[in-house]
């Protein structure tokens, strides 16, 4: 499942937001799109997801042009995307309306287990913590067995401890399910911890400034010299000294 982004340009009225962005994401790859807040990276993800039409350029998935959202490619929002009127089971089963009852039940049970929500099947989102809601949304996305996951700053609203745990969870799930993942973040550390490749975006109008290969096997040692080297090179790329 290759995602090919070709010469995407985007303007909102007179304001250019994306400037000739081209990128290829390979099957099963985990790619982080990293950039400052408001640079247009979420817009890019929305274009790739088929929710927003680009001013020019196009996106293809295995050669097929994207014109609208598709259940084979699921978009994960921050945890506010779960449906508050449905239980954990109801949320995970939301996209499974084309399946038979029994298969649906099995899928739900499997993903409840995978994201560690056993015992909360009948709980409503308001009874869950932020991290649990986020895992629920990931489970809802995975349950329809998509080829690609698009995550738009999914852990942005979580506290830093939960955020670290969620990254580990996401990597574990990714290694189990081997989906292609496109992950938008403004967090440099997060991108280096998660991605096979980090796509560094510029300020608006955003173009791809540099693509960094993260050649560290999982699980990643966050104090290894290579991790620090890659992280600092991205800090430098964005024009920040790694000091406070």
């Amino acid at each position, binding site marked *: 499942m290759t995602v090919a982004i070709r010469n995407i340009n985007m303007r909102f009225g007179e304001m250019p937001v994306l400037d000739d962005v081209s990128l290829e994401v390979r099957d099963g790859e985990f790619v982080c799109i990293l950039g400052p807040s408001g640079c247009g990276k979420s817009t890019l993800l929305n274009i790739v997801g088929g929710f927003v039409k680009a001013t020019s350029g196009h996106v293809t998935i295995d050669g097929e042009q994207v014109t609208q959202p*598709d259940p084979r490619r699921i978009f994960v929002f921050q945890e506010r*995307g779960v*449906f*508050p009127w449905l239980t954990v089971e109801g949320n995970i089963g939301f996209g499974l309306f084309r399946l038979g009852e029994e298969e649906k039940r099995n899928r739900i049970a499997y993903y409840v287990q995978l994201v560690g929500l056993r015992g909360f099947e009948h709980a409503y989102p308001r009874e869950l913590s932020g991290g649990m809601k986020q895992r629920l949304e990931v489970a809802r996305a995975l349950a329809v067995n998509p080829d690609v996951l698009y995550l738009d700053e999914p852990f942005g609203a979580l506290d830093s401890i939960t955020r670290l745990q969620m990254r580990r969870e996401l990597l574990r799930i990714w290694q189990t399910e081997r989906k292609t993942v496109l992950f938008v973040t403004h967090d440099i550390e997060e991108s280096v911890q998660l991605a096979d490749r980090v796509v560094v975006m510029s300020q608006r109008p955003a173009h791809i400034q540099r693509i960094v290969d993260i050649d560290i096997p999982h699980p990643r040692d966050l104090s290894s010299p290579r991790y620090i080297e890659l992280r600092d090179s991205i800090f430098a790329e964005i024009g920040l000294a790694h000091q406070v």
Partner: protein
Amino acid sequence: MRKIVLPVITAAVLLVAWHYAVRLSGTKIFPSPLAVGKAVVTLAEKSLLWHYIADSLFRVAAGYLLAVVLGVPTGILLGWYPPLARAFNPLIQMMRPISPLAWMPLAVIWFGVSNLAPIFLIFLASFFPIVVAAMNGVRDVPPVFLQAGRNFGLTPAQQMRRIVFPAVLPRILVGLRIAFGVAWLVLVAAEMIAVDSGLGYLIIDARNAGKRYDLVVAGMLLIGGIGLVLDVAIRRAERFKWVRWGFKES
């Protein structure tokens, strides 16, 4: 248990204060609580009371349910199709502040001396709050929910059924409660014209038929008491599992 102790004490204190206020002032116009209690008993014995309560409840139920049946779909449609809302919202906002009582003369001409006149007024009173609650509820459905629905491949009809409707249900319920309060308020005035039964009629009739202020106050208390019971019943609906998520834990 603890929830009712304080209100009961407050009511008892007020009743005692009321009793002595009437006795000490020696007023002939305002009845004492005992006189009001006796009036209620007399009414109940003559079975007139149940007859009046039933008539009032029927009128409110008919007008209100008609408003629910027409108002909820209207509001959802207006919220869902912004051009429709742009076209009709100014009209709705203009109609809304007109007291339903202003329609009284017209209602009497149209429907004559019949149940239909008060039913019409109650319908008018409850229709607009319901429409507005449903319309605003649909407009405020978070776009991420709809986006997720599209992503999972829902058709527009499925979006409506599986996302918009459950998402606005708590808001609609709030609208229904507000509308019911208004409907009950309007009932009394609506029954002062065009009909010769009901709790509103009881009040106006008691005054006209010889300044029976014990019956007037009895009628007022009955209207308040029944309104309270019905409001509590509607609040109970907030605990249903389909809407509970939309209300604060109590």
